[in-house]
């Protein structure tokens, strides 16, 4: 079981200079909404940006996490 803090840590350590905001949508620690900002998203397609978040979450994405809603942002 992952807490919102765990998810935040996984994302921020997996993507360079990332800042993540994580919400537990259901209170059951398996449906999350994440908003991730990173300069590393610059010049990448939305699909590639989401894939970076998938990679940061690794196996959790298909095991402990049932669903994650992702929004990626390139900081100004």
């Amino acid at each position, binding site marked *: 079981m992952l807490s919102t803090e765990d998810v935040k840590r996984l994302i921020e350590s997996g993507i360079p200079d990332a800042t993540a905001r994580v919400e537990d949508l259901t209170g059951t620690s398996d449906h999350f909404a994440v908003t991730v900002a990173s300069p590393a998203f610059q010049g990448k397609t*939305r*699909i590639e940006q*989401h*894939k970076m978040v*998938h990679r940061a979450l690794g196996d959790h*994405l*298909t095991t402990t996490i049932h*669903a*994650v*809603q*992702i*929004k990626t942002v390139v900081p100004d």
Partner: protein
Amino acid sequence: MWTKDDIQKAVSDNKILIFGKGTKDQPMCGFTHRAIAVATQLGKPFEVINIFDDESIRPALVSFSDWPTTPQFFVGGEFIGGSDTALEMFESGELQQKVDQVFAS
């Protein structure tokens, strides 16, 4: 038994295609429901393939698109991601534009 070739064929045969959990009338997951809601608003025919129809669909799909989750949305043979990316593209008008192009050609 579904292979990557079968996924490719389904993607090529349908101008708008969603692989999801459940059917058009009975989506079995909130995200699939949302993807279908987006597709409905595009005003063009679309297909939904239920990954629960056959247990080989999911692994073939995941390796085809290099995307670990469902739903997965395809327009004109192009992978446009899951329900988050589809919704974002819909809200920006980008998705409707792409769909109109695909149906005009």
